[in-house]
């Protein structure tokens, strides 16, 4: 395995691992805070119990997210020193802001988790709101740095060097807000449906539990609202990508020859060497509309760009299909739930719907992983779009397969322990509801 491939694999794995925990740290506090707010309003102990149980999940996952995020901030330099040497000054500002948001999140979480008996109710709730806001802000800040890699701005390039650096302009790049909105909504989507799935499982085992019914409904509201908004943010983001990263856009569509008007490809299997996408369902005009808001505009295919700036087309296209497919699936589940609600059928008594929710529990998380594959693999061969190639940024340190194997083992181990612990907490809570 080449050093470049090992470095890319290690970075990909660290990101894929961290994002699962970061997402929970961003979105789960919303559920926790809503439950506690209901408790303060109604004094119904079921809500308090829910807030406490969800906060335990947050505690475990936040800790793993915090330390795996630390690994990432070092790995930017350990794996891509040339990127950091040149771009550190440009992307550092949002990282510094993220640092302070992370401080506040950690402080508020400490107060929340260990302050149940020490803080008055409203103040305790406020600390939970602090966790939520600071978590959301740290996500938004960090994405500014990633968005800059997709749309580098805030400098002039002279002889390959960044001059006239403006870190504020760099942070305000055109990809930031659409990317941040899409990621945030996706986090609430994943956590909403993940939580709903867990409580659906518990309701299947112990039907009639009032606490789990409430948890299910609350989580579905959060996930459902996100499911409706995620495609909207995705559409805004796709329109930016179509203009600012046309090669990535063509790759995620599996579009080799330019089309005007362009049809949208559903599914299909791009053959990069042959330059065709096999077996895709074509919907005429739709791609032009999605990319540029007009049914006739030309969409550039990969053939218009030199081959040495193509990303791996197959991976990018399939990941995009998986992401969109899972998003649509969850939208459909949301619609089903809404229909049941309108017909006044109690959700917790439709066993088929509960089973469906259990099956969909990981869908949002998988969609997020797939989305990051689109973002990162789709930008290749660049680490800074159009400016610095990933191969030029990689560290000269040899034997990167060793840390790759080491971190793979470490993350698998942590994943297994977290899974076992969460399962235990979930089934303990099943017994709890019986009591």
């Amino acid at each position, binding site marked *: 395995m080449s050093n470049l491939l090992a470095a890319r694999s290690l970075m990909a794995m660290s990101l894929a691992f961290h994002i699962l925990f970061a997402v929970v740290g961003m979105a789960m506090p919303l559920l926790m805070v809503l439950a506690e707010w209901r408790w303060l309003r109604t004094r119904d102990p079921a809500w308090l119990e829910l807030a406490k149980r969800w906060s335990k999940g947050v505690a475990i996952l936040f800790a793993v997210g915090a330390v795996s995020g*630390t690994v990432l901030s070092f790995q930017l*330099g350990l794996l891509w020193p040339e990127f950091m040497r040149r771009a*550190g000054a440009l992307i*550092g500002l949002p990282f510094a802001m993220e640092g302070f948001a992370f*401080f506040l999140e*950690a*402080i508020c979480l*400490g107060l929340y988790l260990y302050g149940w008996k020490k803080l008055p109710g409203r103040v305790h709730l406020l600390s939970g709101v602090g966790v939520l806001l600071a978590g959301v802000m740290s996500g938004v800040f960090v994405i500014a740095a990633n968005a800059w890699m997709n749309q580098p701005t805030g400098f002039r390039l002279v002889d390959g060097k960044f001059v006239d650096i403006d870190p*504020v302009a760099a942070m305000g790049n055109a990809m930031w807000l659409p990317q941040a909105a899409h990621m945030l909504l996706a986090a609430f989507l994943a956590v909403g449906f993940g939580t709903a799935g867990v409580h659906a499982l518990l309701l299947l085992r112990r039907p009639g539990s009032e606490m789990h019914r409430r948890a299910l409904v609350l989580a579905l509201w959060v996930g459902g609202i996100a499911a409706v908004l995620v495609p909207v943010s995705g559409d805004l983001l796709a329109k930016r990508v179509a203009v600012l990263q046309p090669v990535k856009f063509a790759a995620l569509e599996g579009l080799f020859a330019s089309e005007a008007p362009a049809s949208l490809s559903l599914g299909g299997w791009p053959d990069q060497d042959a330059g065709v996408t096999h077996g895709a369902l074509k919907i005429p005009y739709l791609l032009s509309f999605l990319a540029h808001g007009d049914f006739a505009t030309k969409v550039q295919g990969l053939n218009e760009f030199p081959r040495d700036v193509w990303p791996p087309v197959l991976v990018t296209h399939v990941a995009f299909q998986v992401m969109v497919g899972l998003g649509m699936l969850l939208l459909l589940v949301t619609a089903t739930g809404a229909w049941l609600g309108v017909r006044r059928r109690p959700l917790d008594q439709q066993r088929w719907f509960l089973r469906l929710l259990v099956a969909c529990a990981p869908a949002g998380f998988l969609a997020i992983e797939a989305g990051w594959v689109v973002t990162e693999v789709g930008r290749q061969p660049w680490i800074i779009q159009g400016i610095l190639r990933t191969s030029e940024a990689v560290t000269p340190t040899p034997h990167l397969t060793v840390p790759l194997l080491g971190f793979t083992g470490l993350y698998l181990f942590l994943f297994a322990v977290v899974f076992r612990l969460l399962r235990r907490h979930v089934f303990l809570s099943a017994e709890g509801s019986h009591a």
Partner: protein
Amino acid sequence: MPEPAQLVGGVLLLAMIIYVVSGGADFGGGVWELFARGPRAGEQVRVLRHAIAPIWEAHHVWLILVVVLLFTCFPPAFAAIMVALHVPVTLMLVGIVLRGATFAFQSYAAGDRVIERQSVRLFRVASAITPLMLGVVAGAVAGGKIRVDAETGAVLSDFVSPWLAPFPFLVGLMTLCLCTFLAAVYMTVETEGALREDFRRRALAAGIAVGAVALPAALGALAWAPLIGVPLLRSAWALPFHVGTGGIAVGALVALLWRRFRLARMLAVAQTALILIGWGMAQYPNVLAPDLGIEQCAAPRIVLMATLTVLGIGTLLLVPAFVWLYRVFKAG
């Protein structure tokens, strides 16, 4: 008025000091679990965990701030350190991951005995390895063996010799002793009775260990890392500075002997700060001696000013938040 690069450098040093006296002590707490002995061993472990639980994640962020300031404001230095010290930094990261994750696992084991027992064991070992490797990294940065082509940023030295040497490991050992010393001193303030006496004895032993390692480390610097050793021991400020630091170190031990625990805590923090300030003064004006000076490797002025602005606003939010955290969990 100092230049922005100097200001950022000062903030960087301050953040490192706060990290060692806060996060470092949390690692020290884990190390003391390894040495929980005697009739009150279980009790010692319980109070140590209680002391760390609500605050370790917030303390951990100081390290992130250090890294972020380094790569934002001195990018070539960050890049060179990450290339040359890939191995010890990675080992430190493994320690950080295992320490943090296993602490959460054992806190929320929910009666899973296997996970609890193994997590506790890993937590303690990782608590010892992490400050050791942190010190090795610091020692290697201070040691002046990382050579960089200042024009291209290419690292000219190899990937092993800058850190696999006596001086960085002496600094690592000293960091480990310092963290355990701080933890034990803090615990004397946070406990009472016989338990307090346990930590008092441990604090005294660790304090003496710090001194015992500090002397060879300083002499080692002269022999193996003259770039830092010579200014550290031979500049005009060296003698009064070391007399002052030594005096405070002895003062901390005397305060422990006299059971003036709050005073001991203050002096232990001051001693740690002075050790790091001494490093900073000896290394100045280099960020990564001898090739990367502070002015030369600093980011453009506009970046430094923007960072200082963020630091200023962030501090306004941070200080009341930390005060609140400590008031709730460390009062009395």
